[in-house]
């Protein structure tokens, strides 16, 4: 089994690349791989807890929580997140907050890296 690190930069709402990142992560962890997800740019808007799932919009929270339960490590870029007005106390539990070097450190130990750029 290998380690896959996904850098996810697109926003949750308005861009289905975010959905792709989470579905790929789920498929990889279901096959027994170790998966890390780094959220940066507009993707960091998805870490706020208590999201209302309106069916016209993708939802992040329940999928992020499910991935966390499966052992996926998920970390949000702290600077990107607070720049969007979200504080750590408002975030989804067990989701990590760190600086960009977290992503690079995870890449260091990864067999595969998929960097999904945003807008």
């Amino acid at each position, binding site marked *: 089994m290998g380690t896959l690190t996904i850098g996810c930069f697109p926003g949750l709402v308005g861009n289905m690349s975010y959905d792709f990142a989470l579905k790929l992560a789920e*498929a990889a962890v279901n096959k027994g*791989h170790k998966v890390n997800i780094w959220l940066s740019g507009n993707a960091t808007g998805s870490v706020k807890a208590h999201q209302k799932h309106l069916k016209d919009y993708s939802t992040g929270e329940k999928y992020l929580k499910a991935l966390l339960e499966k052992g996926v490590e998920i970390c949000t870029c702290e600077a990107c997140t607070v720049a969007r007005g979200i504080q750590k106390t408002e975030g989804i539990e067990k989701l990590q907050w760190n600086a960009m070097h977290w992503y690079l450190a995870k890449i260091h130990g990864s067999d595969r890296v998929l960097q999904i750029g945003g807008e």
Partner: protein
Amino acid sequence: MKLAVFVSDFKLASDTLDRLKADKLGIIFVANGVYHATTKENGKASALLDKAPNLYALSEDIQTRGMNDADVDKRVKVVNYGDVVDIIFNEYDKLAWL
């Protein structure tokens, strides 16, 4: 290098792809990129289908858009998310998202 390129748009991808060289190059069509595998513009198949011998398109994204396997060009293998995981771990060593 063995490079798998994810193409997620119908336009905008060929400029970069034209120049990439790899010992083994695969293209995985996802999101709106699946139109490369399903759609003929003015009757002509996407030029990207000539760029690599190994072509894949994501079943979930084809079906989401109201199409099915029968709409996919014969050169393209239809795969699901689980297949994509196997492809990127077993057949390629580097990944690019365009």
